[in-house]
């Protein structure tokens, strides 16, 4: 099975890149060669990498378009932050608490993904894009309107204001409408982030190279043929989309536990963010998990690195987007890249051609 070996090798390279990056960053931090600004970006990098991989599962493997992935992040972020905040004082083993938070975030996002998927993925056509787009905005607006508190009598929810909760003296506010959640324990860090990136990769890459993954890709390539060989189309679409939503939820958990204040704004959980994630996926190469990772890091890094250029920042950003797109998608660039690789690794490419 020459092909299987090739795939496994490819996956190992992807894991290797993550681990190597982690080691380099740790060395840079230890030797004091990394600015605090950059250090502050480390967890967001992991967040974006995870959500980009998650969206690539929907776009590249399932072949459906989701314009609401920030919405699933949002669900994961708020459900887990709510949990962590509520048990902060009674559950003090931080790593274990965070593990529970991750599971809660992933399951909540998975559940919502499943519920959104049931009606939509049965249809033929690009309905998922429209519905997820609406879903993302709705979720953001609902969360901005929720007031939630807890006291001796239990949980109180209101969509109006804090007063109408009617909390007793000993009560605590957990979600304060548009002000969101404050005081989430700072449970995530770069190491945990990298571990979660590796787990995400493990799940997605193994899924792709398994019976269910093949079923999903066969639907992407030709639904009618997939049905004709007995693939349950709706079932496998739902499986892939639910996993994708769950992983986006995990990204949300990581995000939420890196901030002391969590609120849903257009720039973190809105339409803009969903599109940005889609940009990571498209520029990194649809279906290429490694590409999504690299694009997510580069495009998050770039605006920060270019900060000193002030006015020209967005101009350069746009140019980089275009260059990346050409590099990944133009046939000429792909050929050039291949020829270049052939020069650098003559033996390997010869074998591939044979």
């Amino acid at each position, binding site marked *: *099975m*020459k*092909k*299987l070996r*090739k795939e496994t090798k490819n996956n190992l390279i992807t894991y290797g890149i993550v681990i190597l990056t982690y080691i380099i960053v740790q060395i840079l931090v230890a030797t004091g060669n990394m600015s605090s600004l950059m250090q502050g970006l480390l967890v967001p990098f992991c967040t974006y990498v995870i959500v980009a991989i998650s969206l690539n599962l929907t776009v590249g493997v399932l072949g459906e378009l989701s314009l609401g992935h920030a919405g699933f992040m949002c669900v994961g972020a708020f459900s887990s932050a709510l949990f962590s905040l509520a048990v902060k004082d009674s559950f003090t083993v931080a790593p274990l608490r965070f593990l529970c938070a991750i599971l809660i975030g992933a399951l909540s996002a998975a559940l919502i993904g499943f519920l959104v998927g049931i009606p939509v993925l049965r249809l033929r056509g690009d309905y998922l894009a429209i519905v997820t787009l609406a879903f993302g905005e709705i979720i953001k607006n609902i969360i901005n309107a929720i007031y939630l508190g807890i006291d001796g009598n239990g949980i109180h929810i209101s969509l109006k204001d804090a007063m109408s909760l009617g909390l007793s003296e000993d009560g605590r506010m957990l979600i304060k409408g548009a002000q969101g959640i404050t005081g989430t324990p700072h449970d995530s860090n770069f190491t945990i982030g990298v571990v979660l990136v590796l787990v995400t990769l*493990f*799940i997605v890459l*193994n*899924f792709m190279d*398994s*019976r*269910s*993954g*093949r*079923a999903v*890709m*066969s639907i*992407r*390539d*030709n639904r*009618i*043929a*997939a*049905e*004709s*060989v*007995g*693939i*349950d*189309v709706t079932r496998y679409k739902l*499986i892939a989309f639910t996993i994708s939503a769950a992983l986006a939820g995990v990204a949300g958990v990581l995000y939420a536990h890196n901030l002391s204040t969590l609120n849903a704004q257009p720039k973190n959980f809105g339409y803009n963010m969903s599109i940005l994630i889609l940009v990571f996926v498209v520029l990194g190469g649809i*279906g290429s998990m490694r590409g999504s990772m690299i694009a997510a890091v580069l495009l998050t890094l770039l605006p920060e690195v270019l900060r000193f250029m002030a006015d020209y920042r967005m101009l350069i950003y746009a140019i980089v987007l275009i260059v990346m797109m050409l590099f990944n998608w133009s046939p000429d660039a792909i050929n050039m890249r291949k020829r270049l690789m052939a020069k650098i690794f003559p033996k390997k490419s010869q074998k591939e051609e044979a």
Partner: protein
Amino acid sequence: MAMLEVKNLAISFGGLRAVSGFEITIEKGQLYGLIGPNGAGKTTAFNLLTGVYKPDEGSIVLDGVNITGKRTIDICKAGIARTFQNIRLFSDMSVLDNVKVGLHNSNEYSTFTGILRLPKYFKTEKAMNEEAMELLKVFGLEEFAAYNASNLPYGQQRKLEIARALATKPKLLLLDEPAAGMNPNETKELMDTIKFVRDHFDMTILLIEHDMKLVSGICEKLTVLNFGEVLCQGDTSEVLNNPEVIKAYLGE
């Protein structure tokens, strides 16, 4: 008992009676041909047999089991596999994986097992790889196993489609114009392959074909469709000499 027994099958699209009163009985192990001029309703008949369309009337019984009106995937599980007139491969997947998708329902493990790489994953994948390679060998495709399906030459793509269909372990194999676009040499080779498949897998085959050499060369029985209706049915040589059939084909 016949392998396939179809009675009075009909479907209309809007006002067009694409197929009506379609009847066919195929015995186990038979190599049966379905012919007729363009637009006669042959592909539509296949789509009815495989549940792509639900018939307006009639019944389809496969090996004693009534499958009328069932979903495509249930009909596949009941034992009908097919190829398509316009090749439908999983084009961005490898040749091997195309066949492995065909093995989906006979080699099972859960999504969970696949992600966590539990022992059953390795065991089942190994069995699937072996079985898929066996099938590819039958069609001389084993050396292309790692290729993208879309990179195969046209003739090989048609063969891969047959291999994928066989992977579902059907009782009845439907081939929609398997020789379309092939040159005479490839067609000759394909005829041998089809006969081999019938003998080797003990398969019952119904095929649509315009190439009369192929039809007269391998089919034992024929049904001729014209304007959605059965024009003539019987042994190949009789049917091909029937004046009405000749008339329908030459078109007057």
